[in-house]
């Protein structure tokens, strides 16, 4: 248990220490901080062993006092992991291997000479080393929700306190009333970052207005959208910010209990959240009579178990209650009758991560960022056919071109951009013709997609749009909870038609069947999952109708993905008769003698593509 004065002491003691990393006070302590990413992406590429090797080398050279190794959350550039940043210089070492460690310790830490060849090359300009912030990946970003990710040690509450952590909670408990907090959040214009974009302040106001002996604050950390990992990165890199924001929400609506519903597939995030909750309880920041202001608030974790529908608020609440995560009709809204029948608010992780900065910097600061109706920033998980896979945070209103071409470094292998998919299985595709549209909630809805939680998957010419629609429908067929008929049956029938199209046995009438079925599902399904499940079909039909028609009429898949429509052919003018393809064909479908032109028997061919990848003369094409 710590008093407010003791927390202030921790802040005063550590703010100098932490400022080495924020660049405000570079040489005060004569220390080096080595920040190694301990997020899931970098852990998967072995960052844990890098940390061990660093500590070992540092101990051998007896420079423990001068060099501190800190395991942080995600820096964002996951494609270049494992990542290591050294302050005060701000040097960015990428794709670090165990073999590199002795050299970095010897040359950089002992002799003060940066090992240039191991740096991220975009930060090296002749003899000068540029700051990470000036690289194309970071220059256009503005980090609000991710402000502490990759800066502090997420397993150390003192480091969070040193970057103004828990100051927002202190401010609301000591200086404001619950109504003022709600007004601040409303004035800021913050909208829910989980998908729908519902105004957060309004949600809080509804729950605050309901009188009850018990109310709940819930956090949706069940990031189900495949290809999205924003919330996980916040939890892994800055778990305390979520706890702080939930306590502030609890104060605002009059709740004393919070639940975080998190995916069980996120073991690192779960572990760090548990550590954070224990630390906050130990410091008296969670528990009874917080800061001696008479406010009680505590938080428990509930693990999800892999059900996409639990991202829907009523389904998530039912799941926390220990039942099948089936949605319920609304009204009553959770703000009136939610968890265990009591008024409940549910916000997602990224929404919460915006709360402490809004409280500390004011609503005007927040609403100055972004577009007219979408304020603040948005975190996107960039993935798919893009050079800089990773996590980016940009002001609302940034264009797709800026995100894909400038920050993301464009499409690799000289291929061209075809579409970006946002909103996961509930969203749609944005074609190249909308490359310059400012991205915010309303514009995305307008063009038939949605913000969703922030997955942004880039596709190039080798992606088949009918196949992508099929991929999402396979997902929703699996994930439909089965409670309402439009979704349970509708998704299956949509998938059947899409299968026919990709197998080349559909008729042109099937397209209108798809369209009318989509319309009925949108109008009649019970919850968001079913109402939005047709979106991937509708948006690909809207922008790539010619691809659907080519599949049906010409039996052609221009991307070369749909196997049933594929044919591998040997170009006679290029075939040298080397027999390599015939020897590797698992189906024995290729015939031909040495130095004679080979032929593929289309009846026997299983379209595995082995011949194509083995041919040294580019003589085999698919089409």
């Amino acid at each position, binding site marked *: 248990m710590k008093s407010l004065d003791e927390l202030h002491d921790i802040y005063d003691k550590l703010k100098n220490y932490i400022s080495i990393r924020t660049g405000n006070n570079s040489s005060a302590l004569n220390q080096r901080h080595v920040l190694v990413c301990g997020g*899931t992406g970098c852990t998967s*590429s072995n960052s844990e062993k890098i940390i061990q090797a660093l500590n070992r080398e540092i101990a051998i050279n007896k420079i423990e006092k001068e060099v501190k190794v800190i395991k942080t959350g995600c820096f964002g550039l996951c494609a270049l992991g494992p990542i290591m940043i050294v302050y005060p210089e701000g040097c960015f070492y990428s794709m670090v291997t165990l073999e590199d460690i002795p050299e970095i310790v010897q040359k950089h830490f002992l002799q003060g000479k940066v090992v240039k060849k191991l740096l991220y090359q975009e930060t090296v300009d002749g003899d000068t080393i540029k700051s990470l912030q000036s690289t194309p990946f970071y220059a256009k970003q503005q980090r609000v929700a991710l402000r502490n990710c990759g800066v502090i040690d997420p397993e150390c509450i003192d480091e969070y306190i040193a970057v103004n952590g828990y100051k927002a909670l202190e401010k609301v408990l000591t200086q404001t009333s619950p109504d003022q907090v709600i007004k601040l959040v409303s004035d800021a214009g913050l909208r829910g970052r989980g998908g729908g974009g519902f105004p957060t302040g309004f949600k809080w106001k509804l729950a605050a207005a309901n009188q009850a002996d018990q109310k709940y604050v819930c956090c949706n950390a069940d990031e189900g959208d495949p290809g999205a990992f924003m919330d996980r990165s916040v939890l892994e890199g800055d778990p305390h910010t979520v706890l702080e924001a939930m306590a502030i929400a609890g104060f605002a609506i009059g709740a004393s209990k919070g639940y975080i519903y998190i995916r069980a597939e996120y073991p690192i995030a779960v572990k760090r959240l548990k550590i954070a909750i224990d630390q906050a309880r130990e410091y008296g920041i969670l528990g009874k009579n917080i800061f001696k202001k008479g406010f009680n608030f505590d938080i428990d974790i*509930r*693990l999800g*178990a892999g059900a*996409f529908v639990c991202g829907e608020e009523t389904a998530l609440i039912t799941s*926390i209650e*220990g039942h099948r995560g089936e949605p319920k009709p609304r009204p009553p809204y959770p703000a009136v009758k939610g968890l265990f029948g009591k008024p409940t608010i549910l916000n997602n992780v990224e929404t919460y991560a915006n709360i402490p900065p809004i409280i500390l910097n004011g609503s005007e600061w927040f609403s100055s960022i972004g577009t007219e109706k979408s304020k603040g920033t948005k975190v996107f998980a960039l993935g798919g056919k893009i050079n800089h*896979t990773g996590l980016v945070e940009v002001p609302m209103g940034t264009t797709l071109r800026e995100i894909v071409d400038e920050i993301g470094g464009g499409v690799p292998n000289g291929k061209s951009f075809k579409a970006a998919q946002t909103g996961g299985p509930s969203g749609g595709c944005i074609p190249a013709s909308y490359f310059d549209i400012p991205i915010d909630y309303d514009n995305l809805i307008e063009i038939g997609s949605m913000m969703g939680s922030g997955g942004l998957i880039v596709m190039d010419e080798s992606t088949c749009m009918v196949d992508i629609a099929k*991929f999402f429908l396979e997902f929703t067929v699996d994930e439909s909870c089965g409670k309402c008929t439009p979704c349970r049956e509708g998704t299956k029938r949509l998938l059947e038609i899409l299968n026919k199209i990709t197998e080349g046995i559909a008729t042109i009438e099937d397209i209108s069947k798809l369209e009318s079925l989509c319309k009925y599902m949108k109008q009649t399904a019970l919850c968001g999952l079913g109402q939005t499940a047709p979106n991937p079909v509708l948006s690909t039909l809207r922008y790539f109708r010619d691809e659907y028609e080519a599949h049906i009429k010409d039996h052609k898949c221009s991307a070369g993905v749909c196997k049933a429509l594929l044919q591998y052919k040997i170009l006679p003018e290029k075939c040298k008769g080397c027999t390599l393809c015939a020897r590797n064909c698992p189906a024995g479908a290729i015939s031909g003698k040495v130095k004679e032109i080979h032929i593929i028997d289309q009846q026997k061919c299983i379209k595995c593509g082995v011949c194509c990848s083995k041919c040294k003369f580019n003589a085999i094409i698919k089409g």
Partner: protein
Amino acid sequence: MQKIIGKTPFNGTEDQKKRLQEAIEKHKSDPGALMPILHKAQEIYGYLPIEVQSIIAEGLELSLEDVYKVTTFYSQFSLAPKGKYEISICLGTACYVKGSGEIADKISSILGIKPEECTEDGKFSLTACRCIGACGLAPVITINKDVYGRLTPDDIEGILAKYA
């Protein structure tokens, strides 16, 4: 989603049962205790055969049906035992766009099992999962705690050989 129910006879030990009953006692009075207990039970037994679900139903004074309808709803609760080496293939969008479908086909053809199945010798099981969040390494598979990324179908044979 269709659940596969294991055919191997249940061989839980007394020690496992004791640990499960302790977990039930500990969480019994929590609101919404069933899910955390099922997670714990799966951790103890590796899967949730009907015998384990019966112990839980009894301990929480629920009907077996109440437990069964929850275990069959969530994809993470497994009603069949997992292999010694559990292969998870990420079929999230980022991995799919980068060809994880072909990786899954390759693993299936080598091991002769489909997703959610286990080889007869109990050595490998295959699960299709949705985004483990290592999109920078796409396409990705995990085998127990080892992560393999930036894969092509040609890499698979060599990787599986390490566990043979």
